[in-house]
């Protein structure tokens, strides 16, 4: 736990120092120190690059990576299966779909909504989209406390396909400016990081983790089956509701702020399972940190590999995630 936290800090420093901008020989870390001290001697553009661009983006990568990984791990605990992730079961598409509707059609009904809702319309829609998809998949695939994996994955495919076609239709309808926004959802990027967004993300993460992270024991007990978990003093119904709502909230928020960044929720628990089996008391808190590490590395690579331009991060994570998904499928071939 401590080791991985230290690792995260080291990577954050490396990431801060990586980039196209030239600070006249100084390291970005020195500049950051001066920004925090409130030193007026540094140039405005140095300050802008370090604070508004790099630091805020690093924090966003840490927050988003962490949430995506934890949501993946908790979904796998709920469905008792390592294949359950936001993308596989259609949560991400649900969120993307409603966010897309909000972007394209939002202009028509925005004025009827209260101001608070107007401001965060895409965020709220993404959450509702994720929640709707989640409830649908859970209803279809689970009966009497047992999850049918095939049903789970197939209903995910169905939701993704519906989402894809409606998003396609919206692209067809949309104006140029909206089109740009929409393609941003589909690729996924952390380039839009600001401190306001980070504050919202930090709030969501705080509430979610207060509820989810102590549930490692409960998720372990769920491996025995819901009835036996109940005998061990676990309020199964409450646990399921918490996971459904909190993971939808996390996935929805991530989609609203960074678009679809796939497979983090699959890769991170997969790596941790290799080390700790399925012991959720370890893998749940550790996935919070490893998720940050993974996304931060991926983001730093994505913005430096084709410098001065940048590669959408979704491409990188899917590139790593796809083969791992196949590896899990092969490993679980017998039990599916």
């Amino acid at each position, binding site marked *: 736990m401590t080791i991985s936290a230290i690792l995260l800090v080291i990577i954050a420093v490396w990431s801060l120092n990586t980039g196209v901008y030239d600070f006249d020989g100084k390291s970005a870390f020195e500049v950051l120190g001066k920004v925090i001290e409130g030193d007026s001697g540094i140039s405005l553009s140095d300050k802008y690059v370090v604070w508004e661009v790099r630091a805020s983006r690093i924090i966003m990568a840490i927050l988003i990576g962490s949430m995506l990984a934890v949501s993946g791990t908790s979904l796998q605990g709920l469905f008792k299966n390592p294949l359950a992730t936001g993308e596989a079961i259609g949560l991400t598409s649900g969120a993307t779909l409603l966010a897309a509707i909000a972007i394209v059609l939002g202009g028509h009904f925005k004025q009827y909504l209260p101001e608070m809702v107007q401001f965060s319309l895409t965020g709220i829609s993404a959450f509702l989209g994720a929640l709707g998809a989640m409830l649908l998949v859970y209803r279809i695939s689970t009966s009497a406390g047992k999850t049918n994996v095939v049903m789970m994955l197939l209903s995910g495919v169905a939701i993704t396909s519906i989402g894809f076609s409606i998003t396609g239709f919206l692209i067809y309808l949309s104006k140029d400016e909206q089109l740009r926004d929409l393609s941003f959802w589909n690729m996924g990027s952390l380039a839009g990081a600001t401190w306001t967004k980070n504050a919202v993300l930090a709030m969501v993460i705080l509430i979610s983790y207060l509820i989810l992270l*102590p549930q490692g*024991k409960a998720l*372990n*007990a769920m*491996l*025995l*089956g819901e*009835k*036996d978990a*109940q*005998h*061990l*003093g*676990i*309020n199964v119904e409450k646990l399921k509701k918490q996971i459904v709502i909190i993971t939808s909230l996390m996935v929805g928020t991530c989609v609203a702020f960074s678009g679809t960044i796939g497979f983090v929720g699959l890769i991170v628990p997969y790596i941790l*399972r290799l080390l700790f*089996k*399925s*012991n959720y*008391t370890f893998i749940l808190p550790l996935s919070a940190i490893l998720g940050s590490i993974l996304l931060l590395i991926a983001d730093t690579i994505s913005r430096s590999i084709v410098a001065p331009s940048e590669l959408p991060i979704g491409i990188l994570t899917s590139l790593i995630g796809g083969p791992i998904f196949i590896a899990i499928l092969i490993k679980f071939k017998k*039990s599916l």
Partner: protein
Amino acid sequence: MIKAHQISYKHKEFHILDSVDVHLGYGEFLAIVGPNGAGKSSLLSVLANEVKSKQQILFKDKNISDWPIIELSKHKSKFSQHNSNDIPLEVKDVVMMGRYPYFDAQPKREDHEAMNHMMYETDVYHLKDREYNTLSGGEKQRVHLSRVMAQLQNDIAHKLVFLDEPLNNLDIKHQYKALEIIKNFTRKANSAIVVLHDLNLAVQFADKILLMKSGKVSAYGTPTEVFTAENISTAYNFPCTICDHPITNNPMIIFG
């Protein structure tokens, strides 16, 4: 301990349980026996509050569904008939689950003690670092027995354990060991309700027998009262002879 009056349970108009009365005192070992499909497991599920029935079940003079879940888990535990085959954890992690009601994040010393003690008793201590999924059927059963009994290692008086066919897949030595563990548990004024298939083992260990057929109680009482040739051959629809056990003088059932 536990009182249930006139329990009925239906699944799609089909009576699985039909007005069953159960009454169990402190320190009693009750064996539920009967042919396949008699409703033994369903009765255990209803009593253990897994499925809701319309009738009240009084556990320690309080309706069992009014108990807080966490508190109830320290007073009673249940061994299920169908244990999951796929639990990607080590054996000691599975047994430690039995201690979940007692600690928050880190197991305390007494949790480790209870876990190790029960692993010794059920003879799985040497397997503690093995992965659960690689065990044989009988070993898995013992791991779960160990977990269920570790859950009730505490200072509370008069605890209750439900066991649904705990002897499945066990070899003869471990069948006796398992029943000894349950018997020792009931000697300390705790109670046990156990679904068994082996009538001769039931005679040796149980204080009371509940013989079921087609969702109804067909006989209830001490082993000597229940195990008459007539009761058994009617319930199982199979001929049998009863004679005295040469050593214990209990009834001994010979089928065929």
